[in-house]
């Protein structure tokens, strides 16, 4: 991080800190490994998403950052401080819960003031900060209501304001949008992102929705079966997934079994049916390999084009802004989309299948 950037962040939030996991393992009971030897780092002032299917260990990871679960092994650092054994109270971290966990017996303002009271602020200051927090999430004037008197979206904002006003080192979100409707979800996620960038917060965000993850994150950590499947910028994960799981979980992907004939100058020379491809080798050796192609990078042409795959259209679906094709190949079925909605192919047609130039990518694992 350059000096200039560091200074910028100090203007925004002096408190935002990095989070680092060093070989962290969480075992429940005797043998259930919820998180298995994870190492990762979340830079200060960035929004990092933990993405994965349910049961992959992402929520456990989040709760270990919060101090609600204690790591069985390994070290957890927030900023430069080792917090591995510190309970939640003593960590400078706050969290927005999936259920919001608003205290039902306190008014909205009392909910937002709650954490401030334990942070050594004077009474007047607590009030001001809490009001500022409510303004920030657009709930000015709602302070005297009870949580039960708010809509789901408003309750969610209160939960965000309550965590935000503490200016924590790290702000945690546990599937914060899962109880909202689709439109609201899009709006709130943009708001969260905006607040995060404006204030320069460190945010760790858990979700199982890949679109949400791609939209808000600086970096995404994809988890599967208690380990990290891949860690990278949204674009990298989408364009260059490391393995079948990531390729399929983030966006959809068609996986092709292919053969690498030779490697020359970091490029792989590949045979796939009648097709010849030259792609970055991504560290692979000659031999059988897997190739991932996004549905929108598949190009259809009338049957008989040389150097392409022979396909048979099983189904064509019109979904408004694009067309969906289900294509039967010799070895497998694939799925393609085309934004050209003036269909020239009908189901039952034979077609030639090829890939757009930046389309296919080798999967290293």
């Amino acid at each position: 991080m350059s000096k200039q950037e560091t200074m910028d962040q100090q203007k925004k939030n002096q408190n935002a800190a990095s989070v680092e996991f060093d070989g962290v393992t969480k075992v429940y009971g005797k043998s259930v490994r919820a998180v298995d030897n994870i190492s990762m780092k979340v830079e200060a002032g960035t929004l990092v998403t933990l993405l994965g299917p349910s049961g992959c260990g992402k929520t456990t990871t989040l709760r270990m950052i919060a101090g609600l679960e204690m790591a069985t092994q390994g070290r957890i650092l927030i900023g430069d401080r080792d917090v591995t054994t510190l309970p939640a109270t003593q960590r400078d971290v706050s969290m927005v819960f999936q259920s919001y966990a608003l205290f039902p017996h306190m008014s909205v303002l009392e909910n937002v003031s709650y954490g401030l009271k334990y942070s050594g602020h004077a009474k007047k200051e607590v009030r001001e900060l809490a009001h500022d927090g409510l303004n920030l999430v657009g709930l000015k004037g709602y302070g005297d209501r009870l949580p039960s008197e708010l809509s789901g979206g408003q309750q969610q904002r209160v939960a965000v304001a309550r965590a935000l006003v503490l200016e924590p080192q790290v702000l945690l979100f546990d599937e914060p949008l899962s109880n909202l409707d689709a439109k609201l979800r899009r709006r709130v996620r943009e708001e969260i992102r905006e607040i995060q960038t404006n204030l320069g917060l460190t945010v760790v965000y858990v979700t199982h929705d890949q679109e949400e993850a791609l939209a808000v994150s600086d970096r995404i950590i994809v988890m599967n079966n208690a380990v990290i499947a891949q860690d990278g910028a949204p674009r990298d994960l989408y364009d260059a997934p490391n393995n079948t799981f990531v390729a399929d979980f983030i966006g959809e992907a068609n996986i092709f079994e292919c053969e690498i004939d030779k490697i020359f100058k970091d490029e792989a020379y590949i045979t796939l049916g009648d097709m010849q491809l030259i792609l970055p080798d991504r560290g692979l050796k000659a031999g059988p390999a897997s190739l991932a192609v996004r549905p929108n990078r598949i190009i259809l042409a009338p049957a008989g084009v040389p150097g392409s795959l022979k396909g048979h259209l099983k189904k064509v679906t019109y979904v408004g802004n694009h067309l969906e094709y289900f294509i039967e190949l010799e070895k497998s079925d694939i799925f393609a989309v085309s934004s050209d909605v003036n269909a020239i192919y009908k189901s039952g047609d034979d077609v030639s299948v090829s890939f757009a130039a930046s389309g296919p990518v080798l999967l290293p694992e």
Partner: protein
Amino acid sequence: MRPAKKSTRRSFVFWLLAGWVAYFLVPWYGIEDGFFSLEWLSADYLWDSDYAPAFFLLLMGEKWWLAPLLPALALPLLCLRFEHSDPRYAKFLILAGAGGFAYLIAQGFTIGLQGWQVGWMESLFGPLGDRQFGMGYGALIVASAFLFLFTEGIAARGAVNGDVFVVGSIGLVITIVGIFVFFPIVQMLINAFIDQDGSYSLVVFLSKFADRNLWGLGCLDGTRSCGAAWNSLFLAVLVGALTTVLGLVFALVVTRTDFKQKQWLRALTVLPVITPPFVIGLAIILLFGLSGTVNVFIAELFGQQPTRWVYGLPGVLFAQVLAFTPIAFLVLIGVVEGVSPSMEEAAQTLRANRLQTFWTVTLPLMRPGLANAFLLGFIESMADFGNPLVLGGNFDVLSTEIFFAIVGAQYDQGRAAVLALVLLAFTLGAFWAQRFWLGKKSYTTMTGKGDSGMHPKLPKVLAYPVYSVAAIWTLFTIVIYAMIVFGSFVELWGVNNTLTFKHYLTAFSVKFAENGVLWTGSAWDSFWTTIQIAAISAPLTAAIGLVTAYLLVRQNFAGKNMFEFGTMLSFAIPGTVIGVSYILAFNVPPIELTGTGIILVVSFIFRNMPVGVRAGIASMSQIDKSLDESSLTLGANSWQTFIRVILPLLRPAILAALVYSFVRAMTAISAVIFLVSAEYNMATSYIIGRVENNDYGLAIAYSTTLIVVMLIVVGLMQLIVGKRVLSRRSDPVPVPA
């Protein structure tokens, strides 16, 4: 920015300081006139052997065995220099705390009023030539300091996420339950194996256990009555089931119907619990006894001689169900209110009608409450001794058998201990069965999302039976109480039915003299004592009960099951046994409490604590854990979370615990009758004394007064604690009188 937490440090310094101050400045041994008389506080109390603190006793060359406590107090001073995370910090605290505490206990039991308590120590070291009395406040504070320094050390090592409050609470509860529940019981059980000569014998135990009076089945073929064990079990199951059903009926009427006079119903159902149990027994005799009003009337109607049918199972069952239904009601009302309306609304949108919703969602969600209510009724019935005493006839139950084994001509402590064992086995069996029934299902219904639904009304099919049962029961309660009030104004029941105020005048007359009010009535002494003891013990009971419930529901720690078992144990022990075991355990040093008010307070706390625990558990398991967690991540520690988040949501449970423990302290008789002294006489034992002198008028008048006083207190408490406001759409329930 969140400031660095100093709280862990603060409590450590506090307890260290307390230990030093107590060792150097507070009288070490118990003071005859009571610590708070402050009679000891003169200029030279430090050098008075009776009042001196430990350090000055040593300077005077007395009680040399208190010297080893000094290094144990000094060791933690080193920890002031260490960081919290330094392993030596934890190590030294654990060493000093555990060592000091263990030594304090050990010296207490080895050295008593006659010097060495243990034979082989006398032969090893020779006669001691000194002695020690019951421990006082100095010893108490030093012991607490050691205990909390120890838990501080345990927490610093990372137990329970390093939470000082939680570890300290666990330590405290374990210690006091150990001293005031297990220690007396062990003393008591040792007696089960002691024969006439004072030596231990298994044969004696077995012969007492196999007694036909205990296990006989004579009632099945009609030859003679059954054993007390079978009688108790049968009665307790009936009482548990009936009180649960009736309690549920009342809870449903109050929360799920359009019934307008809810506050009166609430007040009515609380009446029996504020009544000393034997009073209901007396009223039932006035109605159904040999010369009882109803009994005589019906017998004359059919031209027959009135019979003694009410004495035995019917009378006792009747009285106990009357007495314990309100307990079930108090437990169930919180549970019925706590069932999340959205669950029921969800069921209705899934095409279940009201009745189906009730059977498939509402009732199953109330399972923890129902199980608790049954368990309470069962145990209460097992432990109740007032009603079987008055109405039992030939129907022997365990609790009265225990009483007669100790008070009666037999004076057989061993037999009492054996009977207590059987009683314990039954209640523990019920406890285990309850756990089994509840299983591992989750009953969490109150989530962190504000719940804005409304409870559905009771389905019509259920509403009518529920209404009629409630109406009949209410009518009956009114009649019983009318009898009691009426009886208090009657010269002599059944003989001379003229109305008079004389009983009230004897008990509660007041004279206004020049130098203030003169309380000339004969009952004032015991009355004020009772109020005082009840007022001290109620908040303590509620506090300990709810903290224990919090630990059980919200925290995970090694030995939690044992912990729960221990805290519930005192409830399974009938009052008579508590009374006797307390006398055996606390009549001699190191803990000498008999004859003080403290022993009454303590006995009430541990006898009534399980109600607070049960009520707390039932309500707390309906509050979603994410509420605590969010409080923790917002920077509150677990103590602040407990105070700010859990307690406010637990108001119904707090009310139940407060009311119940206060009222029980005022109406309890079984334990009290062993523990009262001339200075600390309680209302109930005074009344029983009047009953024994056949002074029924005064007894009933005093009871009526107690009932009125408790009604006022209950009303006040309800006003103070109030009702939790969580949802705008729930219909406003007026605060009951």
